């Protein structure tokens, strides 16, 4: 008698039940509701103009989707999110790798530096966003980069009050916060590279740049996969920092906030439209992450 077979369904039941209640069921309802005139607490019947008798009479086909694409705010949030993600992925990766290379070079105190760089990661996005809002609004604007400050750089002043500047403000904040996390992953990758390769390279007289390009980068490919995956999905789904820094003012809404605020923009709250945006968001996140994992995995194998 196989004890595992006997207990399989019983011990797996809590996980499956919770998974179904919290993820699968709401996900399916969400897909359905994106085709209905859903108002949150009730379904609207476009034929009679009142509350629908059944869910089916509330069916409006792709209207929520066409409404979403007609919504200027949604389109703007979509473009803004893609722009932000692009810049953030590049910057956070460079910062993370740079920190990892520096920390692994240090002999004494490496763990102290690692702790300091990692610390911001432990703190919540909302709390950090408030601190950085202060930095951008007061420290950058009035002190460091004002006409009689350290350096006069107009671009770095009033960063939370302009759509383009706020994008870079978000990048600065997130590079500061997530750089240490990515550093940890890169350090683990760097420590996995055998010393022998570097010794062989130095015997062959390779320059440091050549060594970096021909040994470090290819051997780090698995870490790149992980870091790209994490930064890509983090940036795409970013919400807390966005709320804390600008709260979506000056056209700085990212998609996550746009979906959250759609029900406040409309009266009565148009949950159907918000849900359609959420489904589009899901399709985007899923396809981007799948493509990214596929491409980097393939490159990993080729090397």
């Amino acid at each position, binding site marked *: 008698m196989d004890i595992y077979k006997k207990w399989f369904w019983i011990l*797996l039941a809590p996980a499956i039940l919770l998974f179904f209640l919290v993820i699968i069921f*709401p996900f399916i309802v969400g897909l359905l509701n994106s085709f209905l005139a859903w108002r949150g607490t009730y379904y609207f019947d476009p034929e009679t103009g009142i509350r629908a008798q059944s869910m089916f009479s509330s069916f409006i086909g792709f209207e929520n989707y066409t409404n979403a694409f007609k919504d200027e705010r949604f389109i703007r949030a979509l473009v803004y999110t893609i722009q932000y993600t692009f810049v953030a992925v590049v910057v956070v990766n460079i910062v993370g790798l740079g920190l990892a290379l520096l920390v692994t070079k240090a002999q004494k105190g490496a763990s102290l530096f690692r702790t300091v760089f990692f610390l911001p990661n432990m703190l919540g996005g909302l709390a950090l966003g408030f601190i950085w809002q202060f930095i951008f609004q007061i420290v950058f604007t009035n002190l460091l980069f004002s006409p009689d400050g350290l350096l006069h750089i107009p671009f770095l002043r009033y960063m939370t009050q302009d759509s383009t500047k706020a994008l870079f403000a978000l990048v600065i904040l997130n590079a500061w916060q997530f750089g240490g996390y990515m550093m940890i992953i890169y350090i683990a990758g760097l420590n996995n590279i055998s010393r022998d390769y570097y010794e062989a390279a130095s015997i062959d007289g390779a320059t440091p740049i050549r060594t970096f390009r021909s040994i470090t980068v290819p051997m780090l490919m698995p870490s790149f996969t992980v870091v790209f995956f994490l930064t890509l999905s983090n940036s795409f789904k970013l919400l807390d920092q966005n709320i804390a820094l600008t709260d979506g003012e000056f056209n700085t809404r990212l998609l996550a906030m746009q979906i959250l605020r759609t029900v406040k923009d409309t009266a009565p709250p148009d949950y159907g439209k918000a849900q359609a945006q959420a489904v589009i968001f899901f399709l985007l996140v899923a396809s981007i992450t799948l493509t990214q994992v596929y491409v980097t995995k393939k490159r990993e194998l080729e090397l």
Partner: protein
Amino acid sequence: MAYQSRESVAVTGDTNYFLKKKIKLGITYVVLILIALYTLAPLWFLFTNSFKGQADIIRDPLGPPQSFSFSYILNAISQIHFFRSLIITFLITFFSVGLIVTISSLGAWMLVRNKTKWSQVIFMAFVAAMLIPFQAIMYPLIQFFETLGLKNAPGLVLMYGGFGLSMSIFLYHGFVKGVPKGIEEAGIIDGCNIFQLFYHIVLPLLSSITVTVIVLNSMWIWNDYLLPFLVVGNSNTKTLVLELYFARILAGQFGNPWELIFPAVLVTIVPIVIIFLFLQKYIVKGITDGAIKS
């Protein structure tokens, strides 16, 4: 003579080499220290401005406080109901993580040990669900839990349990695969029942991945804003993050009340900083393992 001169050349060459290396290392340290200062600067602003009034903060945001006053901190503590929200946050995190660890370790263990078509399908479903962003399910989820009478703190724990499952089962699954079945078989022969087997034999073997699961889930749940915002909202079971958010919203109608925000942020992050400094070995290890395995 010839031998001697050759040696002296070699020696000067070596000192040059070591000097160069030392300079390089020195530059590395200077850069590292500068970046560390940059990393810590916002936390310094946070600290120093938590003891100043609004006018002082705007006039001199970088310097130490003129007069050291705890009144702003005490005010923030009462405004965000610090002790109440700290306990609520702790309980929610504790029970959610406990739930996640228990059911995902049991589930993953069963999925690995009983290899059938079903176990593969179920595992794939858990993994595929990692692609679903929270936004895609939040509205139906909240509505559904409201009809169940669970739009409250216990409901929040259940929701976290569900959201934490996918990644945790994935991590446990990968780990259990590497644990030899022989030890468990010995236990079965000795007459262990399934719970004794799990609790006394399997769980201790899984302890290192359990650390990872606990770290990753606690960090996320403790700092989460959106789910508590949707579920408990502005009620009297607010978490720390939520208290901070509503304090900011309420006071922020009249400009930015930095003399409240700074001390409020400070007291909400102090518990995490303390925990981090004590457990950082495990936290860093947990993050690294989690990232490499996923």
